[in-house]
């Protein structure tokens, strides 16, 4: 049978497809949250923080440890995760951000892979998967929800999407109307000129690093609940957010948000299509490639023009 015919025959009905779109929205919301956090840091410091997922994963595992082995109140444990994200990211930014400030953005970005690997190794060491160990975080909001069609939508799903929207709106307003936000936008254009104008660039950078870390911590908790409390899984979920940021050309917060939602929905929506389901992990790459190809369709590389 021709592959296209096979594909057409395996398509689910619209009624069967709807629940998958609902589940994809929540996932897309958290991808958006992560993507927006990365964009804000990039626009301020020129660093694309690839350790975003690892920071969130580490924080989530700390929360799990505090809840299950120290008997800590779970909300305090989640707060610890968020603070861990902020502190570790701020510490990295203060130590390495300054040292790498004058380097090429690609170098700055690659350096964050070092933090990723360190955190990944530490997580594997501290929270081994030996003996069938399986960990999970279940937010209290998982126990409440409402039915949409055939499936239950939990309050956590709604919160994930709502926080994604809220962070996007708040960040947009913050960058546009607050003094710190204005300083961040100025730094994105030219760090040196901004410094000569009297803007405390290090303080502004510190704010951006800390804010990015806080968002990483929030994303970590939500993704640990919505996806899995697994170091490797959470660390590399950053790929979906990165693809969304790439579609937005690492500049537009709103395009990042919309792209992340689309990635989440398409990823989930492909699940019941038998012939495609095992390829759905490619969704972020495929959508990013399509978007970049479309955006650049009328452009040629200057290199080509110079040579010919």
């Amino acid at each position, binding site marked *: 049978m021709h592959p296209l015919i096979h594909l057409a025959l395996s398509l689910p009905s619209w009624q069967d497809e709807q*629940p*998958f779109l609902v589940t994809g929205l929540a996932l897309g919301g958290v991808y958006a949250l992560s993507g927006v956090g990365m964009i804000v840091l990039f626009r301020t410091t020129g660093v694309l923080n690839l350790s975003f997922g690892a920071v969130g994963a580490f924080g989530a595992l700390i929360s799990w440890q505090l809840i299950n082995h120290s008997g800590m109140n779970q909300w305090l444990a989640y707060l610890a995760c968020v603070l861990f994200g902020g502190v570790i990211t701020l510490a990295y930014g203060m130590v390495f951000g300054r040292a790498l400030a004058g380097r090429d953005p690609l170098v700055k970005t690659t350096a964050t892979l070092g933090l990723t690997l360190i955190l990944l190794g530490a997580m594997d060491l501290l929270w081994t*998967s*030996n003996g*069938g*160990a*399986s960990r999970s975080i279940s937010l209290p909001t998982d126990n409440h929800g409402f039915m949409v069609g055939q499936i239950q939508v939990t309050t956590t799903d709604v919160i994930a999407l709502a926080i994604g929207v809220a962070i996007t709106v708040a960040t947009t307003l913050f960058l546009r109307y607050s003094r710190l936000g204005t300083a961040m936008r100025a730094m994105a254009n030219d760090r040196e000129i901004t410094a000569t104008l009297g803007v405390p660039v290090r303080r502004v950078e510190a704010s951006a690093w800390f804010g990015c870390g806080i968002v990483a911590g929030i994303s970590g908790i939500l993704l640990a609940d919505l996806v899995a409390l697994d170091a490797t899984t959470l660390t590399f979920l950053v790929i979906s957010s990165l693809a969304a940021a790439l579609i937005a050309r*690492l500049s537009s917060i709103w395009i990042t948000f919309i792209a992340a939602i689309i990635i989440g929905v398409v990823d989930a929506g492909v699940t*019941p299509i038998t012939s495609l389901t095992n390829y759905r992990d490619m969704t972020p790459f495929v959508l990013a490639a399509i978007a970049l190809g479309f955006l650049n369709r009328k452009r040629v590389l200057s290199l080509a023009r110079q040579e010919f």
Partner: protein
Amino acid sequence: MRSYHLLPRMRIGLASVAAVALLALAGCGSSGSSKSASGGGATTSAAGTSSAPAGSTGTSGGGTASGGVSSCGPKPGQKATGSPINIGTIDTHQPGTDFTDGPNMIQAYFNCVNDNGGVNGHPLKLFVELDQTQPAQITAAAHKLIQSDHVVAIDGVFDLLECTLDQSYWKGLGIFEMDAGIAPECWSTPNSAAVNMGPRYSSDGAVQYAIDVAKAKKIVFVQSNVPGTGYIAAGPSALAKASNVPIKELTENVPINDANSVALNLVNSAGPDGWVVLNFTPPEALVILQAAQKLGLEDRVKGWGCSTPCNTDFLAKALGPKWNRKLFVNAELASPDDHSGPEWDLYKGILSKYGSSVAGGIGSFSQMGFVLAKFLVQALQNVHGAYTMKSVNDAIVGIKDYKTSMICEPWTYGKVALHIPNNTDYTTTPDNGKMVTAQGCTPISAADPQIAQYRAAAKAAGI
């Protein structure tokens, strides 16, 4: 037409995606690279590795074994002082797949034996080689164990690939390995025998329960999208076909990033009279089951099943009471939560006194390590004369009807073309944070052609 300088930020983005993707591949596929140092460490200092729970040996150095633990050896409280008998094992140890609880439990058992007279006065020395599923590393480890460490037996292999890669080497040397396997060759070759049933026959058991006991009208069998899934699915498929029950086989990429969609798809595929059978590691199974619970799907099918990896209290605790008697797990070994007796006391005693390095504590991995160590020691005690590779392996292949309360039927090695000595199993179910027995010992159906082949071969060999 506009000219366009490829924006620096786009270069960064593209390079970043490529870098993270490569890192992800490295993390998923051969993440051993990040572990090779430790694996290498274990390899280059195997003698040191063999004394990993040295602290526990030291604490028991006084030789006053207590609490029934001394029954592991023939001379309670008397340390073995003879020349050591070298035993080797190869085990997977990489992020996400850490089987070292198995060899660590064997080491704990050996330490107990060594503190209580040894084997005919000889202490047992375990050489552990850890690998990160790199074929060259595994074959090199086998050669090192034989040529450098001079081991006379291979016992307690917990590995993803070892059975596949080393069979011809063992056969050439006349070694009969004892393992808790994963790869098909652990059961389909003459020089390997496992105490576990592995993914295929355990999945058979889970499907068999769904069809014979729960009377499910349809089976949805789902497992990781990795090489070898066809071999595993062939068993459940044969069982379902023999019972005229439709079966749908699915695979999922791991790690699972969108468990909600996966759970929804499974439930939709099975329908209200269907049964979903999972063949995943505990973390992956957990995310699917929890997603089903969050979406309110757990009651939308007749029931849920799982192969042996789900038989862990970790999973039962994480799932909570909502899954009591809704999930039925095929169990190759008896549940520690509702079995007791002298052997269980010994197992728990050894774990408590010598097993500080067994991270998972009580569970399938340490149980399998216990059984593998116990059977080997029992076989070695029957060797008369010097402990050579030949005399030891003659004793191992001669194992017949060794009994343990941890597996259903007596265990036999024997000279047959394939070995599935553990082919009768339990079914367990979560019960308020513990896994308890839902169905006692039940033979795996001979509708699986490999089970039928083994039983015929065993019968012909007089086993």
